[in-house]
Each structure stands twice: as structure tokens, then as C-alpha cells.
């Protein structure tokens, strides 16, 4: 069973560089990649009755959008390049979710870009790298 490297990905340039770096490392070490995109979400936020009624539909849309915009291009780019790539789109707190998935997948390393992109993830992704470095259960590489 090859080692797994978790790569945090938000579709930004920084995360693209992180992915390039991770891919190179994985190829070198015979590891596989688990590319994770996290949609920030708290089960303790407050919603209006209408938002509640539409939530399931919105979630389906959000997942589809993340899949086309972020995950699909990655798969297209790295397909057949000699490294096994798995992907996951998760809802939750970004750091907690990354730590969680790294633990459950027995990952040997987490790799993340330093700054995020503008868009949905910007306000949270900006600080992700710093916090991740502090709380990661496995070695963590931050790619500038």
C-alpha cells in the first residue's frame, strides 16, 4: 500500500503550485495523492426557513460546481502521469476537515498552498496554511 499525501486545494494559483509540488514528490516516492477541496460550513449557523427548505438543492449545486470548477481540471491535468490521484469534496471547517481526512486516510503528509484565491474560500483560506502548520497531525508542507 503506497503512502498517501493529502493536498489541500481551493482552485487558486497557490494551490496549483502546491499540487505540482505534491505530484512531483509523490512520483519520486511512489506515493498516491488525495486531493481535498473543503467547502466552509458550520452546522451551527443560522438559516432562514426558505434557506432551510432549499438547502439540499443548494448543496447538490455547490458540490457539482466544485466538481466541475476545481476537481475535474485537476484530474484532467494529472491523469496518466504515473501517480494515483483520489479526490474528495467535503463540507466543514477547513482545518478540522483536512486534519480529519489526513488521520482517517493514514496520510504521511499534508501539502497546502500559502495563500488562497478570491471567491468562496478566500476569507477562510487565507489563514489556512498558518493554522494547518500548527495543528497538522502529520508533517505539513506549505508551498509559496
Amino acid at each position, binding site marked *: 500500500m503506497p503512502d498517501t499525501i493529502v493536498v489541500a486545494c481551493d482552485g487558486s494559483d497557490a494551490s496549483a503550485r502546491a499540487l505540482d509540488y505534491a505530484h512531483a514528490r509523490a512520483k519520486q516516492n511512489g506515493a498516491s495523492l488525495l486531493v481535498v477541496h473543503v*467547502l466552509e*460550513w458550520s*452546522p*451551527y*449557523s*443560522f*438559516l*432562514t*426557513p*426558505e*434557506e*432551510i*427548505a*432549499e*438547502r*439540499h*438543492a*443548494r*448543496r*447538490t449545486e*455547490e*458540490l457539482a460546481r466544485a466538481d466541475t470548477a476545481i476537481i475535474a481540471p485537476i484530474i484532467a491535468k494529472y491523469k496518466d502521469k504515473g501517480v494515483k490521484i483520489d479526490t474528495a469534496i*467535503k*463540507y*466543514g471547517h477547513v482545518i478540522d476537515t483536512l486534519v*480529519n481526512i489526513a488521520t482517517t486516510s493514514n496520510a504521511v503528509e499534508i501539502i497546502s498552498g500559502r495563500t488562497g484565491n478570491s471567491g468562496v474560500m478566500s476569507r477562510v483560506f487565507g489563514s489556512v496554511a498558518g493554522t494547518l502548520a500548527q495543528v497538522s497531525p502529520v508533517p505539513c508542507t506549505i508551498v509559496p
Partner: protein
Amino acid sequence: MTIIPRVAATLAALGAASSAQAQTIDETVNAMFASSTGWFVNFIFAPIPGTSFPWIVAWLVIAASLFTVYFGFIQFRVIRHSLQIVSGKYSDPNDAGEVSHFQALATALSGTVGLGNIAGVAVAVGIGGAGATFWMILAGLLGMASKFTECTLGVKYRNEYPDGTVSGGPMYYMTKGFAERGLPGGKFLAILFSIFCVLGALGGGNMFQANQAHEQLAGVFGQYPGWITGLVFAVVVFAVIVGGLKSIAQVTEKVVPFMGVLYVGTALIILLMNYQHIGAAFGQIIDGAFTGAGVAGGVVGALIQGFKRAAFSNEAGVGSAAIAHSAVRTKEPITEGFVSLLEPFIDTVVICTMTALVIIITGQLTIDPATGDYILNEAGRIVTLDGSSGVGLTSAAFGSALPWFPYVLVIAVLLFAFSTMISWSYYGLKAWTYMFGEGRNQELSFKIMFCVFIVIGASANLGPVIDFSDAAIFAMAVVNITALYCLMPIVKRELNSYLTRLKSGEIKRFH
């Protein structure tokens, strides 16, 4: 519904109205309102022949007690598990991003925590004395079982559409649940419920809120015509529900919970400031509950007031919560029942009791030192220190301890009123589209009517508005509880199955 063209005419006249005419417009709206809703109110609150006990109050109490016994005091047995579910301990992480139990509860609560907790309680103790508080708490505790029953059914029989949206509520469990049990009349009950739900949305969920918000504003800033408040509210609500200005609603949804915490926190501080009177206050509550201590109607009077206000505040058995809770993502409908039973507890047993205690402890209800009984006015209401009633009484009580609080209360009342209106506009809309079909025109017609009623509510006197609000909400309970009786074996089956699987470990804890 002959009221609508007349209202339209009145509104048209508004444009030409000078400030001197404003008072007359208020009075016109008032008189028109009282005369067109009186028969409905009289019917709902008719006493049981030979007594002074309204049949509707008995109906609610008996139902809540029956559900409590039938489900083996469910509200006390599962409350720990309820809290675990709300905190997400049993939520599958793979369902993250869906509506959580916490969110469904918070949204349902911001629909129920409203003026009922502030103004309604003041009305109850203003008529029924301190003793009404005891019956209110009891009704809250019993109501937990009603809410459990209706919300479980709400989730179980909701409609899920191909586009992923969800519609649920009594209309759906009446039709689908009755069909499943082979009972006739489901469709009829569903339509009847929908009619009352629309009226309830316009009454308690709208006019009562607008009315009390206006009273609070007028109390702090001086008297001015009610239709002005109504118009402002109507414009903002219109912007949200018709104009799709979601940001206003979202901000409210976030601020309301903090207002609730602030309100309870302040009440606690006032209680601590007067800690030496707490014992005496509970003495008054217990004493009043069983002796009637000189209120109109004695013990029965206190009981009726307590039960009425509790039902109006926490809406247990009314059916509205079943609409709010139905969108949660869960494989086990019963879990939403467990969560929803926290609602009457938070709403009535905690928040309403706080209001009542503050009013009692700050000595707002005047007592004749010679007899120890309340001093009553001609209408049979207890004379308060400054003569206020409803939200004004609560405001005076808080203000006597913390002089700045009435200003905070104005904001709280406005926000509570607003969030309750938004919630009820949704409940009403669901009932409306159930009857007339989904569609832009159908939705728009209801939403516009809803806004018009805000203006009427703010202009009418407290009396006719509260009476109509109560009547409409309780009429929903008549239909809903009938259906709950027919469907409660289904809930029991779900409950037993779930509890067995929970015990055996088949229901997994994730966190």
C-alpha cells in the same frame, strides 16, 4: 375575505390623509377589524356549556397530557439524547452541508420566540396573576410531547421534489399519513388546516407582532398613529419576501438568537438584583396557581390565561413547527421529534418564565395591602403600577430595575416581531400554495396580502388583534391535533424501533 377590498380602499385613502385624519383612519381600521372577525373569535373561545372554561384550552391540555402519557413521558426520558442530537454527536459527517438538527431547531425557535414571550406573558400575568405562570410552565412541559409528535410526522411525510427542495407540515402528514392508515378525510383536514394556517399567519404571525411592535415604539417615543409603524414594517417585509432581499432576513436570523440570549441574561441579572424576593415570587406563583388569589375567574382564570399564553407562545400542537422542522436531513424522522421537544422547553419553561418572574419580582402587579389580593379594574384586569399592559408591562418591569432596558427591548421587540413575521410568512405561504398550487402569481398574491395585514395589525387596538390572533392559531390546533390522534400509533412505532436500535448500538454515534 371581504376585508381585502375594504382595506385596499382604506389604504388608497391613506395617500390623502393629513395627520389630523390619521387617528380616524386608525379607528376605521379598528372598527372594521373588530366587526369582521368577532364571530370567529367567539366560536373558538366559546366556553364549555355550563362552565367558564373555553373548550379550546381544554382541547390543548387534554391532547398534550394524552401524548405525554401515550409516549411514556417522552419529554423527560429522552432530553439528554435530544441534546446530543442537537450538538451533532449522531450526525453522519458525510451529511455535512445539509440542514443540521441545530439549524432546524434554531430556525423554528426564531419563529416561536417572539412577542408571545414578552407581550403574551405580560397579558397572562396581567389577567391571571402570578399563578398563571405555574400553569404556563406546566403547559410548556406538556406541550413538549405535542411538539414531538407533530415534528416527527412532519419529517416522515414531507414532500421531496426533484429539484431537491422540501415541503413538509401537517398538510402532508394529513394526506399521506391518513392514506397509509386507510383513514378517510385526510385531504379535507389538510385543506381545513391550510385555511386556518393562512389565517394564523396573518393573525398571530403578523398582526399581533406588528401591533405589539407599535405599542412598544409608541411607549418609548410617544404616541403616533399605528399605520406608520405598520407601513414601515410592511415595506421591509415586502422587500424581503417579495423583493428577495435575503440579506435583511439573514442578518435578522443571526441577530435574533443573540437578542434572545441578551433578554434571558438581563432577566437573570434583574432576578439576582432582587434575589431576596425570589422566594416570595415563587410563593405567589404557587399560591396563585391553586387559590386564584383574587384574580378574575379564580384558579380557572389563572389556568386559562397560563395555558392560552403558553400555547400561543410555543405553538405546541398548532402544527407550525412541523413545517419548520421538516427540511432537516435525517434518515430517522423521530430524531427531529426529539430535537423539537426542546423548543417548548426553551421558549416557555425558560424564556416565558423569565418574563413572568421579572414582572412579579419588580412588583408591577398592585396588591391591596389590607387583603393581600390584587387590585382589579372594571375590566377584571389587575391594575399595574403605571397602568400598562402587554409589552408595555414587560418594558415597565425591566425598566424599573434597569432604566435603559426599554430601549434595548424596543430593538429586541422589533427584531423578534420581524423574524416571527418572516417565519410565519413562510408557513402561511406553504399552506397557501398547498391549496392554490405552486406558482409565481399564487405566491405573490399571498405575500402582498401578508404585507397589507401588517398595516392593519399595527393600527388595530390590542384587544381585537390578540383575540383574532389567538383564535386563528387555536383553530389550527383543532385540525392538527385531530390528525395527531389518528397518526400517533405511527409515531409510537417509529419511537420503539428507534429506541431499540439505539440501545443495541445499531444507531451509531459519530462524535
